[in-house]
């Protein structure tokens, strides 16, 4: 049901518990769908023998072979464009763009073909493809390997955009993405994957049922109920929000945390209802501040009913700068729980 709190995120142990990392849950969803449907196949750089640089295709080439799990040359325009063509011809490709930052070399295939061919054909062509891509910084990988770019992809019409914050959602969203006859951009955050060589947010590794299940798009989740302020986030931002909620609790503030899960279609109702309840809004986003997700959430509330807001909404977002390499500068720029707490204080001062 829309907006229901889900205990899975709180790591309570349960019967037959099995936790998965997001990397494993993505691979599991993919494998289950590939067993169900011969038309599903995977293409991308290093997704075969290596199992993906981020572990999300682990085990697939061993089970399905190299016709359905294809390592590609470094030719994004060609293989992502090819995925569009294959999808239009009835296949169901899952294609990986290794880092979302690389979209620059192949964006025409994404925003002009993948996202528009259904429309241009009046719905006569379907484009059942999944474009999965990694994003996120905080480990000194520099300005061309650390971006999230949620705003860029969510802004352009014709593609669905999802972003899991935990393994349970990751599997359900991937299943839905593969079954969707529309193009889906599946954006996973590197710090949530479970890769040992890159610190992982433990809260993302949660109980994930072995059976198939799907999570509908367009349904945000209240991951912590509260009454005083609504904190909205996606991906790693959800975990920052939950940590901030703990800090706020110590100050007697009861925060509600909303995990958007899907950016397109956006669950504006859940966000609006939460803000109507709390009267206060903080949006967290690792993407650049201006012209993006934080503005979109605030505009949603303002245009529906500005009286829902009892104080000016706050944005905790990345500044409008290329991502710096040096650790103190990168840390300064990234959202974190303390910044969310400070945003609340600022809001209350007004």
């Amino acid at each position, binding site marked *: 049901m829309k907006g229901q709190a889900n205990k899975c995120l709180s790591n309570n142990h349960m019967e037959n518990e099995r936790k998965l990392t997001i990397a494993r849950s993505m691979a599991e969803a993919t494998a289950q769908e590939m067993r169900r449907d011969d038309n599903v196949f995977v293409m991308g750089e290093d997704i075969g023998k290596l199992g993906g640089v981020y572990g999300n295709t682990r085990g697939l080439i061993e089970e399905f072979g190299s016709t359905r799990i294809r390592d590609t040359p470094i030719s994004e325009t060609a293989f992502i464009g090819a995925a569009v063509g294959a999808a239009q011809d009835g296949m169901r490709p899952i294609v990986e763009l290794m880092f979302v930052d690389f979209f620059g070399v192949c964006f025409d295939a994404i925003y002009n073909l993948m996202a528009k061919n259904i429309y241009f054909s009046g719905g006569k062509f379907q484009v059942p493809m999944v474009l999965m891509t990694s994003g996120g910084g905080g480990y000194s990988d520099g300005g061309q390997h650390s971006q999230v770019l949620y705003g860029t992809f969510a802004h352009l019409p014709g593609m669905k955009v999802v972003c899991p914050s935990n393994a349970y959602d990751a599997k359900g969203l991937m299943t839905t993405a593969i079954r969707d006859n529309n193009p889906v951009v599946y954006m996973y955050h590197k710090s949530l994957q479970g890769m040992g060589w890159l610190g992982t947010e433990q809260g993302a590794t949660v109980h994930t049922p072995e059976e198939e299940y799907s999570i509908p798009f367009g349904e945000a989740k209240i991951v912590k109920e509260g009454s005083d302020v609504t904190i909205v986030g996606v991906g790693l931002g959800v975990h920052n929000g939950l940590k901030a909620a703990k800090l706020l609790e110590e100050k007697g503030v009861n925060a509600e945390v909303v995990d958007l899960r899907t950016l397109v279609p956006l669950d504006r109702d859940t966000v609006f209802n939460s803000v109507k309840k709390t009267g206060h809004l903080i949006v967290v986003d690792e993407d650049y501040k201006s012209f993006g997700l934080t503005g979109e959430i605030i505009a949603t509330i303002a245009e529906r009913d500005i009286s829902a807001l009892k104080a000016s909404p706050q944005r905790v977002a990345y500044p409008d700068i290329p991502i710096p390499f040096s650790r103190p*500068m990168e840390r300064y720029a990234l959202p974190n729980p303390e910044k969310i707490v400070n945003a609340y204080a600022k809001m209350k001062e007004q």
Partner: protein
Amino acid sequence: MLPTSEKKKWMYENMLVSRFFEEAMETIYMEGKTPVFNMAEGPIPGEMHLSTGQEPCAVGVCAHLKPSDIVTATHRPHHQAIAKGVNLKMMAAEIFGKKTGLSGGRGGHMHIFDADVNFACSGIIAQGLGPAVGAALSKQMKGDDSVAVAFLGEGAVNQGAFHEALNLAAVWKLPVIFVIEDNSWGISVSKAESTAVKHNAVRAQAYNMPGRFIADNDPIALYDIAGIAIEDARAGKGPTLIEVETYRLAGHFMGDAEGYRPDGEIDRLKSKDPIIRMKNLLIDENVISEDENLQITLKAQKLVDEAIEFARESDYPEPEEALDKVFV
């Protein structure tokens, strides 16, 4: 066009500085990353792509270049930066993320920029080619006989940018040289699995420019061919594509477990170390004595040690400096 003894010595010294620098990088990179290998930790965080074994590709070309000549490099830039004359202390400081770095810590290891010697990098595969073509265009329009050199890996040849850049350079007869460092591996995918031709040099025919192949990581042979290409470019004869068979002795990036390499490959490649081969060549040809070799080696090590010390002792930037230099 074979190198003089002086040039050979320069190449050898430069290869040594490059090698010692990469060895220092390899050691220091692991500081703070054991026993838990977390890329974010230590004095050199993030990714690290070492050029160990690929030194000949840089020196064979850069031996011909002046400061006004442009070089664009990739995510594996250290050997090329050193050969081009990038300020070693400031480069080291940049890799450590210090305020005294080439860009005050904003770029890091994959984004080494030194305007004084016209050196720039891109972390996105093949994207250095366009700017090199543009720099060459600029020189041509100004009537300047400087040239541009774009380095790329063999994996990059399968990117659209490669084909567009070569075609444009040929159509406008630009003074640009494209140098492919073929180390056979694009992370875990071999050239045989990803590339339709055995030698990328043949692709030059598609763009009506000379395509040259240098076997076995040979800096002398590369010096010869690069010299001709650069001379042709300076004389207005247009671009050249050069492919160098080289060897990556380290992983794609530090942290690469290299499970995809066939057994014995790394050992076999180490036995062909280009530094040792160059040393033996210079001694055999009486260009240097064993004694001079020792002096050269110590000097190279000292240069690297001083650069590292400078980097370690420099301060970090203030956090708010992140907001500066977005615009001029």
